[in-house]
């Protein structure tokens, strides 16, 4: 069964460093998403991406964040200068536009900012 894959599973970084989280969405999907989940809290929407541009973004997705689909298969989330409060699980999801409208999630990347 096709699945969304995310790498790495765990990323440790120093405060102020840049990180890139990688995702390979399901191959024929058209919409891509990033969410985050701070430990013990609910999953929060960050950004959606369609047709090579951002469709929607939340208040969390400030200038420190950017997304890119560099090569038609990968979908990346970059955090330019990480802060302690960026520590969270980051989930990628993809969706094939259609009547079911189900977003399929990857297993997540745990980001630890020290």
């Amino acid at each position, binding site marked *: 069964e096709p699945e969304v894959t995310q790498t790495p599973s765990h990323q440790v970084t120093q405060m102020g460093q840049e990180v890139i989280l990688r995702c390979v969405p399901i191959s024929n999907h058209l919409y891509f998403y990033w969410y985050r989940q701070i430990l013990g809290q609910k999953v929060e929407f960050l950004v959606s991406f369609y047709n090579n541009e951002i469709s929607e973004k939340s208040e969390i997705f400030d200038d420190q964040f950017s997304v890119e689909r560099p090569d038609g298969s990968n979908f990346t989330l970059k955090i330019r200068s990480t802060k302690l409060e960026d520590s969270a699980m980051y989930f990628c999801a993809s969706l094939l536009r259609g009547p079911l409208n189900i977003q399929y*999630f990857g297993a997540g990347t745990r980001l630890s900012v020290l």
Partner: protein
Amino acid sequence: SQQGEEDPQALSIQEGENATMNCSYKTSINNLQWYRQNSGRGLVHLILIRSNEREKHSGRLRVTLDTSKKSSSLLITASRAADTASYFCATKGSGGGADGLTFGKGTHLIIQP
């Protein structure tokens, strides 16, 4: 309360019993979905119910939706130890486009063997 609030926050039952979790939301929706998350793992989609549907079944899962009360319930029948997980409802707004999902805080379900 916030969009997509589940209750109870935690539920512990015996294996074989039924588990019921509730979710409330505030804005108009296109659909409502339930996801499961095992500890430290990703989100697994369970079931989707559209705003014009009132009830849906999938295996041991039964979901209801009451748009007049802006609420939904997830029933898991004949629970098993493997059902131990956190369960989240997530709503998709009616605005169309590539809307992100709005998740609730989740119900942590523990099935005692």
